[in-house]
């Protein structure tokens, strides 16, 4: 591990933690401020509880959960609320006055609302403990990791900028020293991803009761998020490895540049000479662009983001890009002069 690079990573992570911590604090305050509002605001339950015509019964179930039964003959609504504490709430609302409605499932974060037409009315079942997929958190983790990857993005150039005399006169080969720096930063990026995921979960848990679940699709999402950040970092490192100055500009232009490459590759169709030329230049170019592989397609079935159908193509390509760009960076650094 490279001590100097590790100090850099530590500094960046500290700032990240402070920013995220501030966001969490804001979230916590918001949660406390809206405590009662969240608990029972849905679906007019609170107004029912206070209605003079409602019969309200409270029970404690054998497993410790609290059950509340509300029966309002005037509204012809029967509500059963089972509060399982952190395991969420299960609410059944039987509305005999409602017209037969079509069924459906809706999600609001970890809250799942199922509407089912049954004989005699409309049954609405609300579960506040619907599964939340790690893949969703991975999106936020990816954002944090990408930010860190960009901040750490020109490790070798930073040494070239006036520190080679101290960095390259160590009793190890240039290749080893460069690899050390890259690996240290990679560790930091992975750590940033984990912190991002943890943060997203905690923030979510402040407001809802997520039941975290992990499926193979989530595994792919995590892999793409992590490898994507690493590939992005490695690309920046390779682009700047020979520079002494001006690497900040390259890192700054990398984002818009990479986005433009992906946009042109995906959106420009070859209809005339110009667009054909653009197409045949930018499409191959886009294969070298890590952002191209951060594909997330929404599925309408379950209401959550899933990974695109080319399941293993993206993570593999990202891994290859990471290795190739890292090698390019290391090879360049062998020949840099003070």
């Amino acid at each position, binding site marked *: 591990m490279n*001590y100097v690079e590790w100090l850099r990573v530590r500094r960046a992570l500290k700032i990240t933690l402070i920013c995220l911590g501030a966001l969490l604090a804001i979230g916590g305050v918001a949660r406390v401020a809206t405590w009662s509002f969240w608990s029972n605001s849905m679906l007019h339950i609170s107004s029912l509880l206070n209605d003079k015509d409602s019969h309200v019964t409270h029970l404690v179930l054998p497993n410790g959960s609290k059950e509340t039964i509300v029966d309002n003959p005037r509204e012809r609504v029967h509500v059963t609320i089972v509060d399982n504490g952190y395991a969420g709430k299960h609410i059944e609302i039987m509305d005999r006055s409602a017209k037969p409605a079509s069924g459906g499932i809706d999600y609001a974060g970890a809250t799942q609302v199922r509407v089912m037409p049954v004989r005699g009315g409309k049954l609405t079942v609300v579960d506040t403990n619907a599964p939340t997929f790690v893949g969703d958190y991975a999106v936020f983790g990816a954002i944090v990791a990408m930010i860190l990857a960009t901040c750490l993005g020109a490790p070798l150039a930073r040494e070239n900028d*006036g520190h*080679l*005399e101290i960095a*390259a*006169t*160590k*009793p190890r*080969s240039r290749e080893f020293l460069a690899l050390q720096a890259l690996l240290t930063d990679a560790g930091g990026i992975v750590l940033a991803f984990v912190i991002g995921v943890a943060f997203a979960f905690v923030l979510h848990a402040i407001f809802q009761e997520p039941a975290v679940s992990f499926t193979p699709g989530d595994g792919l999402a995590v892999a793409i998020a992590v490898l994507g950040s690493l590939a992005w970092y490695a690309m920046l490192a390779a682009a700047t490895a020979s520079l002494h100055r001006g690497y900040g500009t390259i890192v700054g232009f990398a984002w818009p540049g990479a986005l433009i490459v992906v946009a042109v590759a995906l959106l420009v169709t070859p209809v005339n000479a110009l667009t054909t030329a653009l197409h045949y230049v930018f499409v191959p170019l886009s294969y070298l662009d890590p952002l191209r592989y951060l594909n997330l397609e929404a599925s309408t079935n379950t209401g959550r983001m899933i990974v695109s159908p080319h399941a293993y193509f993206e993570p593999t390509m990202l891994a290859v890009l990471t290795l190739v760009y890292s090698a390019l960076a290391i090879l360049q650094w062998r020949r840099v*002069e003070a």
Partner: protein
Amino acid sequence: MSTIQISHLTKRYGRFAAVDDLSLEIPAGSVFGLLGPNGAGKTTTFKCMLDLARPTSGTVLYDGKPLAPEAFEKIAYVPERSVLYEWMTVAEHLEMERRAFRAFDTKRAFELLAGFDVDPRKTARKLSKGMRTAVMAAIAFARNADILILDEPTSGLDPVNQRTVLSLIINEAAKGHSVIFSSHQVGQVERAAERIAVMDRGRMVLSGEIDELKADRKIVEGIFPSESYALDGLASDPRVAHVECTERICRVLVLSGADEIGNALAQRGAAGVRIVDLNLEDIFLYAVSPKTADADVVAGARQ
């Protein structure tokens, strides 16, 4: 312990030759001074010695072998400009050195820093130029290295700290380590070094043992009673490096054989012949800027 052999070292940047066909031998355990005006190629020479720059041609060999990364364990380097990380504290720099080099003596480094009056908790950004030099020097002398390569190790330091660095160099020499250092302070080189080389515009113009140079190189001055005198043949004598004459006085810089040249002057009619000793500063000036040197000797300028 290594003998360092530089053979026909040339380093070009584009068409500009920063170092031009330099050949030097630095025996193991000696103190070697590298002198020269700014831009003479001293720093570039050091970089080529340390694999921080690749020679255009020529070689630098340590005990007959090119520099391998493991050798850095035993080589300490103080660069000319500050290479510290602005955002790290001095103590963090020491920790970095401790992790990189097995023989780094952290305790000694802190002692040296205290001697230089540097607060290890300060970030490098907050240090003056002299303090940065002091930090790099403290690190180098705490390394227990066999070879120390110091590029202007006293630049920016006040006279007291300069003396400290000089004493540290002499300490290393007493331990049998090699020290190669460049300095604009000729007096320092005069004290600490046994051998020197003078570079000018990339080329070596002079090298040798200081004691030999002082013993051999003299100014032979002849005062002539009449204005007409001839120095035929004298300038072509291989031992004569430089001749400066006015109507009555002639000064000849000789590389050896001062007595004989003195006699030669007397034979050509000089009434008063005297032989002037040269110190290292004189020798250096004559090597790179004879006009300045002459003016100094004429005016008797000597500090």
